[in-house]
């Protein structure tokens, strides 16, 4: 039995590794082939002499072969060297370490807040026999779903609201529908209907009967919500001027910073794939 599990885990890890490598290669290839990649704004600086210009051009020429660039980059990564950001002129590892806490904090607040809000609204919507609770929760969720995340970020930031709740507000409507449907499905099961009819305490029904039944689906959704939270962090950090990884991704994309984009893509792929695998494993 443990042998089968070891094989399953090894296969999953191999799949994650392959996905990460392909993801990184694709990003590198896309950025390399983009028009204007070879141009460098530093070349517009009239103070530079011929040797400096030649050095900048040589720097670009070194990146021209995408396969050799990627292989070289991977070898360096295995030795812990993530490279240097050409646009920000700092080591990428340092940039990521500096910015990671901001994004992690924002994402953690967003995931926890989003789930708490979705659950807090979905539960009364399912349990209450009156339709009003369901309609109010549904309307609020729908309205939030219709707002672009960037608009939510700007409005809350402009009105001086707490920035940490933005990701939660963006995430909550995307989780609410699933939460409500999963809970409604669980509460409609015969043994739970029987437990309710017998007068078992609602908290006991929820904790002992409903949550164990819906746990696999909730765990799968939890994995996806991490990826959603990072997606929401990009506009939030960019528009609210928070120095996190989302803002770094935006800056790197604007400046066509190939090494940073490749590192970030690989990092995001690793995190999302591991979260998905962990939630799948926990659900299994």
């Amino acid at each position, binding site marked *: 039995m443990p042998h089968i599990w070891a094989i399953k885990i090894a296969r999953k890890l191999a*799949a994650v590794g*392959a*996905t990460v490598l*392909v*993801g990184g290669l694709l*990003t590198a290839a*896309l*950025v390399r*082939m*983009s*028009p*204007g990649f070879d141009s460098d704004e530093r070349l517009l600086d009239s103070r530079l002499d011929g040797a400096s210009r030649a050095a900048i051009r040589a720097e670009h020429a070194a990146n021209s072969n995408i396969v050799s660039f990627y292989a070289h980059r991977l070898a360096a990564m295995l030795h812990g060297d993530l490279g240097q950001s050409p646009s920000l002129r700092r080591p990428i590892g340092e940039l990521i370490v500096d910015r990671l806490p901001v994004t992690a904090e924002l994402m953690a607040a967003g995931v926890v807040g989003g789930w708490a809000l979705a659950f807090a609204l979905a539960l009364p919507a399912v349990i209450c026999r009156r339709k009003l609770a369901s309609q109010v929760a549904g309307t609020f969720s*729908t*309205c939030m*779903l*219709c*707002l*672009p*995340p*960037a*608009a939510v970020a*700007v*409005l809350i930031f*402009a009105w001086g609201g707490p920035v940490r709740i933005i990701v939660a507000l963006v995430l909550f409507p995307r989780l609410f*529908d*699933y939460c409500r*449907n999963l809970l409604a499905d669980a509460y409609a099961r015969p043994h739970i209907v029987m437990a309710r009819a017998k007068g078992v305490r609602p908290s006991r029904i929820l904790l002992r009967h409903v949550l164990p039944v819906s746990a696999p689906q909730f765990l799968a959704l939890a994995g996806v919500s991490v*990826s*959603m939270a*990072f*997606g929401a962090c*990009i*506009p939030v950090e*960019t*528009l609210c001027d928070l120095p996190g990884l989302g803002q770094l*991704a*935006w800056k790197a*994309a*604007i400046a*066509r910073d190939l090494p940073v*984009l490749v590192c*970030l*893509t690989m990092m*995001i*792929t690793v995190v*999302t*794939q591991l979260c*998905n695998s962990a939630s799948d494993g926990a659900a299994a």
Partner: protein
Amino acid sequence: MKRFRTLAWILLAAILALSLAAGFLPGFSYTEQHREFISAGPSRHFPLGTDDLGRDRLVRLLCATRISLLLAAAAALGALLLAVIVGGAAGYMGGWFDSVMVRTVDLMLSLPWLFLLIAARALLPLDAAPETSLLVTYFLLALLGWAAPARVVRAGVRSFRQSDFVMQARALGCPEIRVLVRHILPNLRPVLLAQFWTSIPIFILAEANLGFLGLSASEPFPTWGNLLRELQSPVMVRPESFAPVAAVVLAVLCFKFIAPWGGSQV
């Protein structure tokens, strides 16, 4: 629910008709600058006021509505076409092509969509012509939005592949491509329609986000995304500045009611 759906259809048709009809009115120009009315408030001539270049906000909003609605629908159609080709082929052929497709879809779905869009949009020169940037933005939406519908199409094709009518068609010597196009895909019409209606609001919201970040169509083309950018400078924000937000919310709400299953994928 049916009442809401009818209402959403009427509202959406009215919005689209208004934005299309406005183009035929004399003096309708989203680029015309009224230098004597810069940042003016609402008046009889300019019901939504003017922006910081003296351009009529209402005219620009109507034009943005037309561009955003039509191009989002076109992008949804493009994404669906791509999904049908890739998902249909993978589901029907199976084997290594199916495995590669499933891995690719997994990769695309696991990465945050906005990150992919930003990375892909930034590949183009930021000084691209406005028409190019507009078309490229929606082309990218179509190019990156195929993954989720492709998974649905693949599952649908796989479920029909072993069905009796497909077996009979094969036994009668029907070519494989004909089986797929004439027998399987028409049965997926409800699924395809649902994917189409749910993709449009997703693309509208994605374009709005890109516009906020300055990566959507470049000026002077108005889209809902770049009209929303005005909200970024709190000094310039007035009640009428929220008109594009209201337009986006209204349109997405309409699509949510129109889409089968209440647009739960939005």
